[in-house]
């Protein structure tokens, strides 16, 4: 059984079901990338897994437990960390306070956690006392990912981690994502920047209209001419 198994999930906000039967699986240490057009339900699927969007039917199993509609505040204890696309840092808190918030449910793990994530994102060390709202977009993204890694999650959900970043920062983020996966953490990532993301993906999922359009190893999706034409901009 995979670490995360999403099976035919239907759900969304209010009456509108944006997700119309999406499925995917992710293993520990694996990079799974979700791509698709705007409005395909990529971010909604991430939020459904994180417990922030109502699931009407289907199942989401994490480490063997059914977590569909489980409270969002309990996910971090299960080992599932989520980095939203926008507003993913506490802007008035300093970088260090943001990292401390990452270990909120286990304060005893704070010190070791900070040392570990600063080793992964050394640039943040010099900015520990700076309010996160004053950082550049790329640094903010690093704070958000570092915060999510504080308690050594088994799976991290990254919603468009490279949105709005310069190519140099994108490369840095993808390289760190690979390092995170190598350390045994499962990575489930939504990316607009589809080609470089699929290139490092063990598994790629193409979503369209809230459903799976295709599921295959990332490089295989990249090589598929129809997928390329329809979803990856030719």
């Amino acid at each position, binding site marked *: 059984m995979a670490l995360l198994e999403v099976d035919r999930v239907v759900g969304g906000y209010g009456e509108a079901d944006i997700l119309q039967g999406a499925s995917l699986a992710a293993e520990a240490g694996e990079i799974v990338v979700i791509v698709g057009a705007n409005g395909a339900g990529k971010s909604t699927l991430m939020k459904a897994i*994180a417990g*922030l969007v109502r699931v009407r039917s289907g199942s989401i199993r994490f480490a063997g437990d059914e977590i569909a509609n489980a*409270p*969002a*505040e*309990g*996910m*971090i*204890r299960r080992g599932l*960390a*989520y980095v*939203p696309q926008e*507003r*993913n*840092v*506490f*802007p*008035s*808190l300093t970088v260090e*306070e943001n990292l*401390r*918030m*990452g270990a*909120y*449910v286990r*304060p005893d793990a704070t010190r070791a956690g900070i040392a570990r994530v600063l080793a992964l994102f050394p640039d943040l060390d010099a900015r520990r006392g700076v*309010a996160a709202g004053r950082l550049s977009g790329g640094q903010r993204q690093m704070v958000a990912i570092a*915060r999510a890694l504080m308690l050594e999650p088994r799976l991290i959900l990254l919603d468009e981690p490279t949105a709005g970043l310069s190519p140099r920062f994108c490369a840095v983020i993808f390289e760190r994502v690979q390092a995170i996966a190598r350390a045994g953490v499962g990575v489930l990532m939504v990316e607009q920047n589809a080609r470089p993301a699929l290139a490092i993906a063990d598994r790629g999922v193409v979503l369209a209209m809230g459903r799976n359009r295709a599921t295959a190893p990332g490089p295989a999706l990249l090589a598929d001419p129809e997928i390329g034409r329809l979803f990856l901009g030719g």
Partner: protein
Amino acid sequence: MAELITFYLVPGLVLGAIYAMSATGLSLVYGVIRFANFAHGDLMGLGAYAALAASQGLGLSPWASIPFAAAATVPAALAADVLFYARLRRSLPAVLLISSFGTALMLRAVIYLAFGPTPQTFGRAIVPPLMLWGLRIQERHVWIIAGAAASAAVLHLILARTRAGRAMRAMADDPDLARITGVPTEAVIRLTWTIAAVLVAIAGVFLGLDTQLTPVMGFNVLLASFAAAILGGIGRPWGAALGGLILGLAEECSSYPVVGGAPLLEPSYKSAVAFAVLIVTLIARPQGLFRGMG
């Protein structure tokens, strides 16, 4: 100069300290729970009267009866949250606001019922003023200013240094992100109510000590507290505290005879100063004076 300090600046600081404590709680609730609590003023009245009852019933000094004030306001605030606000948390802000109006009326009705409409005092004895640096200053004024400063220091330590305080600030920044990081949001909301209710209880006792107790005392301070909170950038406790001090000083100094012997503004117009400041702030700088101060 001594007259300016004794009769205008010191009373201005005292009033400002009371506004600051009230506005800080108001701003904290606005920041974390995201609604404008119109019951805040009547909570202050409840606290003041609870302290009066303890002071008269147990023969305590008003200062020693402050814990009784908090013992009334904290359960009242938490009960209003459980009974009314929690159920309406996901509805429109206007609905919450109106429900807080209703809560305010209920609290005031309880005060009228228990203590009647006649103004009362803590029955303080005539205390000769202290002579500090050649100035005559009422002893209670010194204690009120010191008490407000101590409360601000404790609040600062809670917000900046404790895990719970960080969680409150995180929730004020982004409630969804706070939930994702595992913050028990309802517990943080209860803590916020508790802190705001303690602050407003102390402010109520201070106000009662400085003037007198009336069932509408809190409501009368409410709008000035809102003005102070908005002046400081609503949702920012430190801005609210500074806003309160500025308003208190502005109100008291507005009647200083700058030219000749007549007051600049008749003292009966004093309370209009807060509204004038509020209106000017809303027009000129709706985000408040201290945006960006954290």
